[in-house]
């Protein structure tokens, strides 16, 4: 009791957003996040001053986990981004950047923050409804006839991570492998299996990324004293036994109670006797591969090897599930009873896969490749880590796409399109000549939210500007982004354009690659304001977009960003417990 110390009072800050210190910190976070954004994003190196690992990344989930944020508001923002990425894998930076710009816009406006929050919420609802519509101009249905759309989606994820250090050809190769791994996990139509299979990622450091490959089946560490020829000589269709219990010779139910050993009994010997009896049974049953999650007793290993079996021990828990899926074996939990025949599984064959200096035993599946392994190679550890994260995210994106088979135009085109759409809806409030339906929609907004129309217009303008700012932050080095006045796509321009050249000659194609430069297209620099117009959907479907974003991820990112921004706008006090 003498160590009880008096509790410190909590620190209470009123209206945190008006504090200049908080604004400064938010601006810094905004700069960090937006400079990471997109394929031209800059990498961030994170290290602590006392040594240790240096982390190079531009991925939001890795970055925000690694940095320590000082202010609670920033922590809140980071938590929102991290929670989003853990569900959807993609669009983390988008969430962060959009949230920051929304806050900055709200701060700049002279409108009551609560009103701004209401307007934001209403507009994001409109965006959601628009994106859910059939005729939405920035949504494409994913075609499953060809792997082109899948490849486009994956490519967008991999290419937007510059810390992977991949050349264009390498990125293409890795994207192809990810799509292959995904397709291998999809069950064939004639089987009863309705679950997606597993794709195990196996990172190998050293070899160049071009050697990355996808294999049907599993890779496990090469068992000791096994030669490659012997493994391959075993032939096809082998019987497999899988144990989840330890075969190291310890008593299975030790610690269950007091055990008294009298007379000539020796526990170790007795257990080993049982293990060898089990080994004999396996040999008789014609098992050719014994796999064990834990350790196998050396004597048993020696015995089994003598009879031509391959022993793979220490599989680890992570590999058990795919192993069961692939072989159909049931993990046996006891060695004291004979193994029932129904527990055996089958492997199509054994092989050896060499990757750089590493040799691994390749277990080929029998018929239906439910399980595949994606071997990712890269030259150094940091890039390999980043590549692994990117591929996991890409796989997550593909899996979500199965639920909602849509994708959004990438390269900033969706953002500009949405902002043009909202501008158009908003302006229909004051132009009486527009159709009555849209007019009533906007005037309904002001009555519903109980704010003045000027407040509504200002806040809506802030929302549109934020979306455009996100699209603009795809470009670095103060390059100019343009927007066309027909479909409202984003058009990147080359760096340092010579003066006096018309835009039509500068730009080649829009950000998502579905439009190319034509003389009849009109442009304005993005973010400079323009007359509202209704963005038209793309008429010709001949040219396919080159960059696609995940639909569910982006939709959720949009909602989470707005909800988090609103929450922060709504904060009246921050109370910090200093104990």
């Amino acid at each position: 009791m003498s160590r009880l110390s008096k509790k410190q009072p909590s620190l209470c800050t009123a209206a945190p957003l008006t504090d200049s210190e908080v604004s400064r910190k938010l601006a810094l976070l905004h700069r960090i996040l937006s400079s990471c954004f997109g394929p031209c994003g800059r990498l961030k190196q994170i290290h602590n001053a006392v040594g240790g690992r240096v982390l190079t990344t531009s991925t939001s989930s890795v970055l925000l986990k690694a940095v320590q944020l000082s202010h609670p508001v920033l922590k809140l923002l980071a938590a929102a981004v991290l929670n989003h990425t853990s569900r959807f894998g993609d669009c983390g930076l988008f969430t962060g950047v959009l949230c920051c710009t929304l806050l900055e816009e709200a701060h700049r406006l002279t409108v009551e923050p609560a009103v701004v929050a209401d307007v934001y919420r209403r507009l994001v609802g409109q965006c959601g409804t628009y994106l859910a519509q059939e005729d939405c101009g920035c949504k494409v249905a994913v075609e499953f006839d060809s792997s082109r759309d899948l490849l486009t989606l994956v490519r967008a994820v991999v290419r937007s991570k510059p810390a992977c250090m991949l050349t264009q050809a390498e990125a293409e190769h890795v994207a192809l492998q990810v799509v292959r791994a995904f397709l291998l996990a999809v069950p064939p139509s004639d089987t009863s299996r309705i679950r997606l299979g597993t794709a195990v990622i196996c990172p190998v450091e050293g070899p160049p990324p071009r050697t990355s490959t996808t294999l049907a089946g599993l890779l496990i560490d090469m068992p000791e004293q096994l030669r490659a020829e012997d493994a391959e000589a075993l032939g096809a269709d082998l019987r497999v036994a899988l144990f989840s219990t330890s075969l190291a010779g310890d008593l299975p139910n030790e610690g269950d109670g007091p055990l008294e050993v009298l007379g000539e009994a020796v526990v170790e010997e007795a257990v080993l006797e049982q293990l060898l009896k089990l080994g004999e049974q396996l040999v008789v049953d014609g098992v050719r591969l014994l796999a064990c999650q834990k350790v196998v007793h050396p004597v048993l290993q020696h015995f089994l090897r003598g009879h031509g079996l391959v022993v793979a021990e220490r599989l680890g828990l992570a590999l058990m599930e795919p192993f069961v899926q692939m072989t159909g074996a049931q993990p046996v939990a006891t060695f004291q009873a004979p193994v029932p025949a129904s527990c055996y599984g089958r492997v199509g064959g054994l092989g050896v896969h060499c990757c750089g200096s590493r040799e691994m035993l390749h277990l080929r599946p029998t018929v239906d490749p439910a399980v595949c392994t994606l071997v990712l190679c890269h030259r150094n550890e940091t890039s390999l880590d980043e590549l692994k994260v990117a591929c996991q995210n890409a796989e997550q994106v593909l899996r979500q796409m199965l639920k909602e088979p849509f994708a959004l135009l990438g390269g900033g085109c969706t953002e500009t399109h949405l902002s043009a759409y909202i501008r158009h809806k908003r302006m229909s409030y004051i132009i009486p000549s527009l159709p009555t339906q849209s007019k009533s929609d906007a005037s309904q907004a002001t009555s519903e939210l109980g704010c003045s129309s000027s407040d509504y217009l200002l806040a809506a303008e802030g929302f549109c500007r934020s979306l455009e700012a996100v699209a603009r932050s795809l470009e670095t080095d103060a390059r100019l982004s343009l927007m066309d006045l027909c479909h409202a796509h984003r058009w990147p321009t080359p760096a340092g354009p010579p003066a006096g050249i018309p835009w039509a000659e500068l730009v080649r194609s829009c950000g998502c690659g579905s439009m190319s430069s034509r003389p009849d297209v009109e442009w304005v620099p993005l973010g400079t304001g323009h007359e509202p117009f209704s963005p038209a959907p793309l008429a010709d479907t001949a040219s396919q977009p080159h960059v696609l974003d995940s639909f569910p991820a982006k939709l959720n990112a949009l909602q989470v960003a707005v909800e988090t921004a609103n929450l922060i706008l709504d904060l009246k006090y921050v109370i910090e417990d200093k104990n």
Partner: protein
Amino acid sequence: MRIMHPDSTKTMRTFCMFYGTRNGTGNAQLLGYGRKHFRFCRRLPPGITGFGGCEAPSPHTRAAGDMSETRQVGLGTLLQVAEALEVIVCRCVGPRGGQVMFTKDTGEVLITRHGSRMLTALLLDHPIARASLDCLSAHCNTTGDGAKSFVLLLAALLRGVGVTCQRQEAEAGPRRQLAARRMSRCLLSFQEEVLDCLMRDRVAPHATSLLSHDNPAQSRARVGQLMEGFFHGRVTGAQCKYLAQIASDFFFRWSCQLDKCELLRLICDHFLAFHTAVTGLPVGRSHILEGLVLHKDFAVYCPKDGPLNALVVSVPLQPSLEGTDETLIVTSNLQLHSFGGWIGSYVEQIITSLNDLQVKLILSTVKQSDLVLYQARRKDMSVVECVGQAELSLFCLLAGVSPLSDLGTWKGVDGRHVAAMTFCRPVVLGSHRYVHVGFSEQRGFSPHCLVLCGPVPGLTDQCVSAFGDAFKMLRRTSEPVRWRRCHNAEATGEMQAVCSGDITDLQGEPDSQRNDNRPDVDVKHRVSESEKAPTGLPSQGHSCKTKTESMDLVSPQNCSSEGHAFGRNIEKGITAGDVTVAHSEILIKPGTVLPVGGAFELLLHHYLLRHSLESSCPQTKATCKWVAEALLNVPRRLYFGRHAHRQFLQVHARFVRGVRTREPVGPVIDGQEALESLACKYELLASVLQCVARLLSVDAVICTTTLGLTAKDEEDDP
């Protein structure tokens, strides 16, 4: 006032607060009749309020022993503290109120608009603030609502006391403390005398009923509106409608023949098991699932469609020597082998016999051995291990089975342990995979559960706590408020005594003497003191202790030590004094609701003013006016912006014009259909009145360095 040593509390007339400062426990204690303890929360933020308002300690009040310091508590201090709390709270009041973020150094983030949680998070230091907060928390625990209004009312009432006392000071000289204490006394009789009658006869007829038997659609809509009114005070504006919809859907989806009160009790008691919090999705993704989600993943999952049987066990199925006194003696290797073989075959036999009973799902509170899992997998049985005790007992309750807890009676596994389920499948919520089971409807209700989403953990928590309190509020609403009409004559007597200005006894006449002279009054005093009880419970809550049929008014959380003690006190007192307690009568019918936006306050304000005109007693007149004025502080805060005051006056005027008949009142503000509970509002007012009465009777704060205050508080807890 005389400050007595704690041992001689019987003769103590004044309440003093004991306040620990140096020990770090920071607990405060109120001494009065008997030994009452209650815990306070901590500090006001620096710069808002400190001890500045206290008058300097006067030397003669310094007591011996551990009481190191005594400070006088004046009305000024009370008012200062209450207004400091009001300032904090009022930014979050009403539909336009904002949120508060609370962070800890551990990285925990809490986002809340709940008044009680907000003030608790401040770690208030001032004993008066902590005392008020304690009353507030006690009130919130029963009704789940009204924390912010509590603070507003408290401040307004104390302001009223201040004004009245100043006036009296001008008339009668410097006897402020005395006047304040007199007001505190008449507040209590005011509640019994005036408030209860007005509630039943005047205010209640204006209210509408929540549930109607002949129009289910209307009751559905009404519950939705009630929920909306509640959520407007607790979550961000745009989510209210959606969450209110979910809450009312959840309530009606049970489609049960159970009594609504029983259903609400079930939901409130097991709310932890009835919801799953998912972080990383927008709030709009929250939804209702049929059946129950057990918050564990399958240890073994074998897909099975259609109905199945489930077994609930609370012991390991594999026999073990652990925990018994027996020792396994092995004399040869063969014996060891056969022992292993025996265990294996025993487990296999158990699983086979379960399989014969069509059991396809085993729910276990403990971890099962690998052997059991292996055998279960061989028989296509799913197993869920380490299910929480609370969840599993809820499961048993819903399925009507009892868990298998003794393997000795193994042969007797039958229908009592086997539950019929409609489905059992994994469900992925957020990043976790859980077990989702469905119950067959043969027991007359179909359980549902909630999935509550939020983009960040803090927001999800807010959503969860708002839902929990929403059902608490609904439960309180659907129970009647009973009225105890006892001690009528005496209460009137007291009121009149106070009215006639008989304040001699307050001026320091020893209490013991007084009580000896008037044994019947003693009883009454005990009861009325008990109503100042630290729990802040309304008086009927305490009085119900003496009656078994109305015990349900008091929720379990609230039966704190004080409650029990007082219950006993009253009982003893009553038997001793031979006073019969009158039968309870319904004061507010179950499910009575009023429109939001201040309808309750405006109505009561109106009728209190009218009553003050009709009343002949000057003290009653003054109290009515004073309470009526204070009531308006709540609706006034609901309007904001430049023309707030004018807007409020317009609404008020229009509303009073409307209150001519005894018809149900319409929406206070056009277009606002939301409702609020009359019972909760009434209890709020009653709690605040008692809190004020108690604060006014505090005379001094005594700082101690003893550590005993917490320990006693905790050990007394039932």
